[in-house]
Each structure stands twice: as structure tokens, then as C-alpha cells.
């Protein structure tokens, strides 16, 4: 009740809530493609790699969105270049490139800003969301949802069967970089809500939860977005009540949802699997006894 009161009263809370719900939704949507393509590590990498972009934007006095997207995309290209042009495998290439970008980011930020700013970028500070940030998040959200809607077919087939999509002439590599660009934008939008370090949780956990509950990609995307939004609302609520970091609270709510699905999912859950296995066993035993 108090939460709702506070919500009605304080606009900073409204902005925080709206922004985190939007972030939950777009992370959930993009996250589905990230986990189905086995790119969870890539999500982690890009989210860290936006750090120097944020610092550079700050130095130049421009909106941090532009710098962040630039370094995010540069990282994706760098990783692709290293793994395609050497024997270094993709996961190692990711490890090399993103840590370098992250380190540059830390140095730049420690040069120009106080450590509290670094703290906020790393861990988020949703209560400090300004109107302009909220609008940027909304615009990013609309772009992401429109892009996924428009290219749903192509994203589906190139994620499921890249050989087929290449065989009929889809530009797989372009699609990959397109997705990386969307991923970077999502990361940037999430900076203030959950921060660089925990973005990857918002990308992966709601999507993985949905993955355990459905066998259809379209349904998975909607569920994942819903889980992202629910996590954002409850996380924010908990962070206000107990006065803990909002990003961490949001992430833990999504982890809790995942745990529920992991245990109780009718098809994939541990509980029903065990029950089914037991049943199958006892049927066999009954047969061998009779």
C-alpha cells in the first residue's frame, strides 16, 4: 500500500518504475535470441564493453547512449575478427576483447569522474533516472520491439538453422551484427536500472525461465518479457522497502522466478521429471514382479 502511495506521490518513483519495466521487457525479448543462439557470454561482454563508451561520452559532453553503442558494436566486431582470423576460439576471443574494453573504461572513468559515478554505472541507480533517460529508454524499447517484430522470421530461422538460412540467401553475419547492435542498445537502456555488471542477468534469466516453460519461440518471447517486467516491479518494490540496491533486488526476483520454473515446470522441471522417472521405474518393477 505504502508503495502505491509513494508511487502516486513521487514522480521520481514513477520514472524509475516505468524505466525498469521497459528495461525488463526489452531485455526479456532480446534475451530469448541471446540464449537460443548460445551467446550468453557475448551478452556479458557487450554489457561490460559499453563502459569506455560511457566515459568518452561524458568527456565529450554528449549523451552516453552514442558512445556506449559505438564501443559495444566495436567489441562485437573485434570479437568476430579475432575468432575468425586466428585459431582462438570464440569464448576466448570474447574474454580477451571485452576485458580490455572494460579496463579502458575503468581507467577513463577514474580519470574524469568520481568513484560514485563509476559505482552507479556498474550497479545502477534507478532512483536517479531523469526524464530524458526515461524517454531514451522508451525510444530504444520501441526500436527493439519494432525490429524484432519486423525481422521475426529471419531471426527465427537464422537462430534455429543457420545453414538453411545461409542456403536460401539470408546474410547470417549481418543478422548477427544487427542483433549485437540491438543488444548494445538494450544494455545502454539498462545501465541505470541494473548497471553494467548485472545486465546479463536480465538478458538471460527471464529468457531461460521462459525456455523451461514453452516449446514455441513466440510464446517464449512474451513470457520472457513478462518475467522481465514482473522482476522489475517487484525488485523495485523490495529495494524501496528494504533499502537495498535496486539492480540487485530486480535480479534476485528474476532468479527466484527461474528457480520456481526450474523446480515446477510441467515438462522440464526437476520435480515432475523425478515423479515421472519414479513412475516409470515402479511400472517396470510391477511388471517384473507379476
Amino acid at each position, binding site marked *: 500500500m505504502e508503495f502505491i502511495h509513494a508511487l502516486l506521490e513521487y514522480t521520481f518513483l514513477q520514472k524509475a518504475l516505468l524505466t525498469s519495466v521497459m528495461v525488463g521487457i526489452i531485455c526479456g525479448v532480446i534475451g530469448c535470441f541471446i540464449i*537460443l543462439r548460445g551467446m550468453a557470454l557475448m551478452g556479458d561482454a557487450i554489457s561490460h564493453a559499453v563502459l569506455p563508451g560511457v566515459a568518452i561520452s561524458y568527456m565529450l559532453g554528449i549523451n552516453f547512449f552514442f558512445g556506449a553503442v559505438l564501443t559495444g558494436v566495436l567489441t562485437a566486431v573485434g570479437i568476430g575478427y579475432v575468432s575468425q582470423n586466428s*585459431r582462438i576460439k570464440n569464448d576466448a576471443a570474447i574474454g580477451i576483447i571485452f576485458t580490455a574494453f572494460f579496463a579502458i573504461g575503468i581507467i577513463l572513468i577514474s580519470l574524469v569522474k568520481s568513484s560514485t559515478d563509476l559505482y552507479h554505472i556498474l550497479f545502477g541507480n534507478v532512483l536517479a533516472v531523469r526524464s530524458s533517460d526515461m524517454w531514451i529508454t522508451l525510444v530504444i524499447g520501441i526500436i527493439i520491439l519494432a525490429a524484432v517484430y*519486423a*525481422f521475426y*522470421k*529471419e531471426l*527465427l*530461422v537464422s*537462430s*534455429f*538453422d543457420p*545453414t*538453411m538460412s*545461409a*542456403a*536460401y*540467401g539470408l546474410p547470417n553475419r549481418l543478422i548477427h551484427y544487427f542483433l549485437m547492435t540491438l543488444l548494445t542498445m538494450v544494455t545502454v537502456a539498462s545501465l541505470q536500472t541494473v548497471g553494467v555488471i548485472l545486465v546479463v542477468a536480465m538478458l538471460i534469466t527471464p529468457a531461460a525461465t521462459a*525456455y523451461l516453460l*514453452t*516449446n*514455441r*519461440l513466440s*510464446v*517464449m518471447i512474451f513470457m520472457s518479457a513478462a518475467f522481465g517486467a514482473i522482476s522489475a516491479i517487484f525488485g523495485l518494490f523490495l529495494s524501496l522497502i528494504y533499502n537495498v540496491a535496486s539492480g540487485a533486488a530486480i535480479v534476485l526476483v528474476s532468479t527466484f522466478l527461474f528457480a520456481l520454473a526450474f523446480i515446477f515446470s510441467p515438462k522440464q522441471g526437476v520435480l515432475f521429471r523425478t515423479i515421472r522417472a519414479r513412475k516409470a521405474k515402479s511400472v517396470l518393477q510391477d511388471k517384473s514382479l507379476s
Partner: protein
Amino acid sequence: MTYAMSVQNLFVSYHGEEALHDINFTIEKGKLVGIIGPNGAGKSTLLKSLLELIPKDQGTVEVFGKSINEMRKKIAYVPQRSDMDWTFPISVIDTVLLGTYPGLGVFRRPNKKHREWSYHCLEKVGMEKFSQRQIGELSGGQQQRVFLARALAQKADLFCLDEPFVGIDITSEETIVRILKELRDEGKSVFVVHHDLSKANTYFDELILLNKELIDVGPVSEVFRPEIMMKAYESQLTFMKQNEVTV
């Protein structure tokens, strides 16, 4: 005349390691063609380089007298079953529906007509009862039939299948062979990678016998002879002989 497939001086390598050496052949339209050879002979590599899914070092490939890029939408490719992600959240009918994508272009979506056509293709392979299953919840043979249905849904002129008979039941194998022969009889061209010699002579019209180099190509009656087959499977045979000596 225009050939279904015409290949000249094809060389392919992986990281400097040669996988295919100077392949040349032409295949007429309307044939059911087996690409055979021992494991690691480069059969999958040949199929993928024909479709330009992997880069070639040298050579030209023409399909129905045109470059691959002009013909892509008319070519259906069925990958090796081991290359697929069977946990992907997609149902059987939606998998078949993917076959209609090449004909749709970027922004158009499949409609009711495309769904009905996909269902019809599922019926052809006898899998319509499973249309709502997730694709991982099928046997190997059933999965292969679903992918054949997807190829049918594409209304292609050229069909390329990589090892469709590996690890599948006999009913599925018979269904697939029957459909491939029907396609051939309709005038379509069908290329099938196959490493098991046992039924090669009854399944195919023409054989491409491969072991890094092209050993022989031609009608089954000419190629499927012990002295020629020996050449391709030679290394395996000498290996067996050596083992006999040492045992």
C-alpha cells in the same frame, strides 16, 4: 544443354588443409544422385561448397546453368541431423513452415495458405499426427521426415540431403526413398550424401564417388563396380589388411 549441376576445377580447404582436390563433373536434370565415399571423404564439404555455404579456393559451380546466388531460393538443403539444435523451442509444423520462408521474402509473413501447404507436406511424409510436438520429442527417422517435409514445402527444383539415412528406422528410410524417387519422376534433381554402400545401387540413378578427389562419376551401373569402389575405400581396406597382418 543445361545441366542440373555443373562443377569445374573445384578446390576446397579448411585452414590450409585440403579437403577437396580438383573436382569436375556434370549431372543432367531429373536424376537421383548419390554422393558416396568413406567417412571424411569430403562429401558434406562438397555439398556445402556447391551451395557456397563455405568458401571455395577455386572453381565454378553452376546450377541449371546459373550461378548459385540466382538459384538459392529454388534449392532445398537438409543438413546432417547431428548439426541441428534439437532443443530449440519450435514445433513440427512450424519447422515445416520454415520451408515457405524463401518464397516469402523479408517482410511478408506466412498466412493460412502457407500453413495448409505445410500441413499437406507433413501428410506426405506421414508425420501430420505429430504436428504440434516439439522437434526434439521425435525419433531420428521422424525428425528426418520432418526435414524432408520442410524441403518439400519450399517447392524447390534441386534437393540436397546430407546423410538422411543415418540412424533412422526402416519405415522412415523407405518413406524418404519413395518420396525422393517421386521428386525425381516429377523432373526434380536430388543429391543425397550417403556413406553406406549397401543400398547405393538400388537407391540412386547416378553416383559421385569421392575421396578427397573425384574417383568416378556416372550411372550406377558403371560406377557401382568392385574395382572402382575399391579405389575410394582403399585406405580403409589397406588399414584392415594391415591389421590382419599384425593381429
